[in-house]
């Protein structure tokens, strides 16, 4: 894989210093990185999962709505942020790779380079009240 854009490299570095769980995906939705706080939510270390294609991570964490129905992939905030190039927010439940269910609020936004090129998207997670 070629070198990431400097904006994405710096975002990853910033994410590695923050206590908020953060996901970074590329323009195709491939998961490039998640930080240690996100590892705690998802139940698996990034070094163990590595980069994951969108259809893989979107189903691995089993996002479900409050009524127990699966959240369609195209309704996930990261996917919407990429598709619409606009921030997206929602809440859902996930079952992490460790098998634990968690209630999450998620805000995602696209990463537009200074030249207007879409470089990917970032999602910030908060653990919501059960």
């Amino acid at each position, binding site marked *: *894989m*070629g*070198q*990431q*854009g*400097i*904006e994405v*490299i*710096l975002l*990853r*570095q910033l994410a*590695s210093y923050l206590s908020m769980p953060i996901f970074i995906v590329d323009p195709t939705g491939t998961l490039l990185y998640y930080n240690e706080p996100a590892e705690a939510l998802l139940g698996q270390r990034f070094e163990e999962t590595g980069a994951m294609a969108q259809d893989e991570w979107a189903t691995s964490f089993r996002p479900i709505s409050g009524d127990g129905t699966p959240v369609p992939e195209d309704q996930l905030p990261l996917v919407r942020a990429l598709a619409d190039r606009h921030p997206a927010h929602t809440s859902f439940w996930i079952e992490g790779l460790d098998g634990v269910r968690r209630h999450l609020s998620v805000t995602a936004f696209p990463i537009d*380079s*200074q*030249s207007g*090129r879409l470089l990917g998207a970032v999602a910030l997670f908060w653990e919501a009240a059960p």
Partner: protein
Amino acid sequence: MKVTLWGTRGSLASPGAETARYGGNTSCVEVRGDAGTILVVDAGSGIRRLGRAVPRDIHRLDILLTHLHMDHIQGLGFFAPLYWDDVEVHIWGPASVTLGLRERLQRYLSPPLFPVRLRDLDCRLTLHEVTRDEVEIGEFHVRASFICHPGPTVGYRIADSRAAVAYMSDHEPALAWGNGPGSPEWTSGYDVAEGVDLLIHDAQYTADEYAERIGWGHSAIDDTVTFALHTGARRLVPYHHDPSHDDEQLDRMTAHAREAAASSCEVLPGCEGATVTI
């Protein structure tokens, strides 16, 4: 190709007896191809002397700006070919999010900072906004890529059919490292410097100085060597010397870099006036 260092200093021109060997002029490098193409990389105060070395019968010149900090553009108005009406000059450089390259350059090339306006230059001037471009200029293939430095800043990789040089005058790759460089995918500037025959790279600080200036956009000499080894550069010119470093200090830093690089990468002193043929 021949690569000549016309200005090696960073931040501020620093002439004087104590900087005579490494030079006091700010960033400017000439890359001259075998077929006569001349690329001028950055337009610090060193570009004035380069202007006297440009053949008067040249038809086209290209100036590649890495960014628009003052030490990289302050010589523009003193570059003689800009006042030759029979020469085509192309200036390449990054825009900002809100201002185009022309507007950004006009902030300097206009009163009260400079008496001559950009539009008043005699040459046939064309401006090109650089993003992540690859272009052919004469016999050269030029690639620009944004690198880690405050504000829009690019590094340039210039290659002909036989060799490649990378120019990264202002670059702090260590800001995006954890405990040393990671994979190429996550290393700022890797795609510019990978496997080049000559790497001209920011080495403004000693390790102790860098510890007090993290995030300023420049590198410690140790990180410069690490980056050169990581990218597989064959030769390294430490560059963008701090104005406070005299020749003796720079000798010590060059020796330190040579020791750190050992036999993996040849370290050449970044002296103004030096020419490297690759």
